[in-house]
């Protein structure tokens, strides 16, 4: 019986890192659109860092899943990474994690496809990020085996809640690239 816990540890570390990155991505997405940051950072830069953090989060999620399949204490089949409920260990909790991850991939990809699906639909889809965050939190609490991390989850949820409230309240302005001056004196 393999008792080497390395992959087990990597899976947990990866999961926590993914959660931290997801939280920062969400916070970044909210913060850069609200004051005071929104008027100080270029929209393009803000979007870029928000997207990059999301990408890193996806990478960490991938590491988390890979480590779980390689670990021997939880016999996670490869298919269990994409089909929710296949895990022999706490299938409901891990299933929620699978759904959250897949949703994350979809939302990330949707950015490149936003012209195809239309801005309005894209926006609505993007709001699902909150669902992803919620599902990831539930997954971390229910399937996770690090009881000491409860404080992290609580802080993350508090931060996201606070930032969301702030965003809603301040309805931040946007710093756009300077609009090229129209010469109003041009004759019609």
């Amino acid at each position, binding site marked *: 019986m393999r008792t080497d816990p390395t992959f087990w540890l990597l899976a947990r*570390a990866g999961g*926590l890192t993914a959660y*931290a990155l997801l939280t920062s991505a969400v916070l970044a997405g909210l913060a850069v659109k609200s004051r005071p940051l929104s008027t100080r950072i270029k929209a393009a830069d803000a979007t870029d860092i928000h997207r*990059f953090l999301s990408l*890193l989060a996806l990478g*960490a999620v991938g590491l988390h899943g890979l480590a779980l399949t390689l670990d021997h204490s*939880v016999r996670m089949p490869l298919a269990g990474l994409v089909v929710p409920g296949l895990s022999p260990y706490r299938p409901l909790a891990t299933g929620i994690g699978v759904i959250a991850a897949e949703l994350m991939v979809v939302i990330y990809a949707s950015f490149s496809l936003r012209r195809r699906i239309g801005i309005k639909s894209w926006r609505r889809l993007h709001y699902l990020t909150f669902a992803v965050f919620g599902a990831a939190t539930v997954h971390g609490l229910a399937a996770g*085996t*690090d009881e000491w991390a409860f404080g992290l989850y609580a802080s993350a949820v508090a931060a996201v809640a606070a930032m969301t409230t702030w965003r809603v309240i301040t309805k931040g302005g946007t710093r756009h690239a300077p609009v090229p001056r129209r010469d109003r004196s041009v004759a019609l």
Partner: protein
Amino acid sequence: MTDHTARLYAFAISILVFFVAWAAVAARPWAPATPSKPDPQVAALVAKEKRVRAETIAARRVLASRRRAAALAAAAPATPPQPSVRIVTLPPLTITRTS
């Protein structure tokens, strides 16, 4: 134009977070290492070990006292002439039982 500095920072910090998380998780590897419930076999073994240990101590004490008695009996001088007792086929006039 992408801000490579910002991306680099983000990447570096996420790597740092990852290693810190790994260290934190490794610091408590058995909490719990396997997702199963506390192994009932292990718990039973621990209880059995405690019991065996206590029994060993008691047994040793008993054996020591018996060894002392046997040593004394062995070291005793020639036993005095024993009263003659033999199994007979007469009907008993009285009986002995545990007193």
